[in-house]
């Protein structure tokens, strides 16, 4: 909708006062009824005062968010600055309120006295109830002159992008990484090296540190023995978020979650936990090339990059990805967050597993999917039966499937993968 170019226009109040008082005055004179003039006297007075106080300014307003990125359920302040309001008295802003956005005041309508404390503008609260990137704070504003004679606008107030980062559900894992192949880290590796976990007690060799000498063994055996430890290395985790299908109805941060809500929040939680442990995290969205994949990295800045990318995920398939061509670090654990309802998710999972990677499917399908009619419910039941068979085939193929349940979700699976990784196995190439 395009608004007409803003100018100062007479308000309904001025038109009412002016026209009614003019008609009353005319009738009073023509009919000889001065009482009609008395009746319209307040209108005549108001119109006289309001009409002569025509403002000269050309008001403009701009908006700035105090924090361009917040977490789900958090709020920030939007500063609306009004300028060139000579002659203006009251500022009214009607904010647009996109879905999942809450405003303070709740109606989204704010007023300010431009001749008083609010001369510079108004400060509004903007909160977000769901992860994502959306435009907020904009809308239309109007400025009314003194005595409500003239009104500027409604004019458009440009909005701003607010990024809502997913609020990671609490997640913790004590399981060891299956394939620690990096340089430095906290996971005990398979090779001996500098670390804290005992590997063996062996005879002293040139280059061994004296503080590693194991004196009881050395005295008993008569030759110098040292304690050797296993090296500690970091591991890589590739987070694969299935955005091709979204099941369920989202109720925001405090309500029901869709499959994509769960996937994004779970991926955020795992990323935060993994990066805090010093491991490397990569992120890829399954069904579209946007947002762009995040290569493996570590640190707080990388966590912010991962969360930003997760916030930019939108549901729907736009591309035909080729999982076989994806570059995945050797030894990485691939966590696929998916409701496993599309061929794409199945193809990606099985392709990555065939490459010899440790793949874990994190099931994000919500427990309760609201459906309107009996036919849809029946179709959904059939779909679930198909899905159950599919998950069973994945499990038999050695790809563990676990439903997302917060802390400890991946512990058992990762332990099994770690045990399995130390055994010889056949890989199709």
């Amino acid at each position, binding site marked *: 909708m395009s608004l007409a170019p803003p100018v100062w226009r007479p308000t*309904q109040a001025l038109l009412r006062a002016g026209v009614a008082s003019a008609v009353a005055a005319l009738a*009073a*004179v023509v009919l000889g009824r001065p009482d009609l003039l008395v009746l319209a*006297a*307040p209108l005549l007075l108001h119109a006289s005062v309001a009409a002569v106080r025509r403002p000269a300014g050309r008001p403009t307003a701009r908006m700035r968010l105090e924090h361009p990125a917040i977490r789900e359920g958090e709020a920030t302040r939007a500063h609306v600055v009004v300028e060139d309001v000579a002659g203006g008295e009251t500022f009214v802003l009607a904010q647009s309120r996109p879905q999942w956005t809450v405003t303070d005041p709740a109606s989204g309508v704010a007023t300010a006295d431009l001749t008083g404390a609010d001369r510079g503008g108004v400060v509004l609260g903007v909160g977000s109830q769901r992860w994502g990137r959306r435009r907020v704070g904009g809308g239309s504003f109007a400025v009314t002159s003194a005595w409500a004679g003239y009104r500027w606008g409604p004019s458009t107030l440009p909005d701003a992008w607010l990024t809502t980062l997913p609020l990671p559900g609490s997640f913790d894992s004590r399981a060891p990484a299956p394939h620690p192949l990096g340089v430095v880290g906290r996971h005990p590796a398979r090779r001996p090296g500098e670390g804290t976990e005992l590997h063996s007690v062996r005879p002293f060799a040139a280059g061994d540190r004296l503080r590693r000498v194991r004196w009881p063994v050395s005295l008993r055996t008569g030759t110098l023995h040292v304690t050797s430890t296993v090296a500690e290395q970091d591991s890589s985790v590739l987070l694969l978020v299935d955005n091709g299908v979204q099941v369920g109805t989202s109720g925001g941060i405090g309500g029901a979650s869709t499959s994509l809500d769960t996937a994004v929040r779970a991926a955020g939680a795992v990323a935060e936990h993994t990066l805090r442990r010093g491991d490397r995290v990569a992120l890829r969205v399954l069904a579209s090339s946007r947002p762009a994949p995040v290569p493996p990295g570590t640190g707080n800045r990388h966590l912010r990059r991962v969360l930003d990318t997760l916030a930019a995920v939108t549901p729907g398939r736009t591309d035909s990805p080729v999982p076989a061509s994806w570059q995945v670090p050797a030894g990485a654990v691939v966590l696929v967050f998916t409701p496993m309802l599309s061929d794409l998710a199945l193809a990606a999972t099985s392709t990555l597993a065939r490459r010899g990677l440790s793949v874990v499917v994190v099931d994000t399908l919500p427990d309760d999917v609201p459906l309107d009619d009996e036919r849809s419910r029946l179709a959904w039941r059939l779909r679930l039966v198909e899905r159950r068979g599919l998950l069973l085939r994945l499990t038999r193929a050695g790809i563990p499937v676990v439903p997302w349940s917060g802390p400890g979700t991946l512990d058992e699976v990762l332990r099994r993968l770690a045990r399995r990784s130390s055994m010889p196995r056949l890989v199709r190439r």
Partner: protein
Amino acid sequence: MNPAASGNRPSRQQVVLRAVVTLAGWGVLGTAALAGTQFPWLFAAPGVVLAVLAGLLPDTGVALFLVLDLLLVWGVAVPLRIDLPLLAAALLVLALHLAATLAAGPPGAVLPASVVRRWGLRGVTLAAGTTLAWLVARVAAGASLTGTAATMAAGLLLVIGWCVLLTVRLAVAGGDAG
């Protein structure tokens, strides 16, 4: 609470102001019925409806038609008398007009306290001016000035001057708009 739903609801302040618009309109009709010798139902009935509509749509031209209808009803129902009912009716018209002025705005708007205080002061000023006009008219009526050629001429000059001023102001505003 769903914020999207509350956006279309008027604020409590707006509800009060809208109620004042309707009640003041009905008040003028009631005053005319009490002060008049006959009550023109033909003109009053639309006034009753217009008062409700003006309360629901304060930022439209409905309030103007309501005021015009009230003037018509008063002119037909009440004979020429400068008495207290006339002052009461004029103050009710003032209340109607100010309430409609303040209620205009997007639903949910709440005027700052400083603006409400300022408009309260303005209302008192306008009420004082109205009372002064009523007193002048009462004195003039007591001096039997009404109906003389001098009064008619002065009145016409005043009306023409007001109409010219208003036309010029509104035309300038309209020209800017175009």
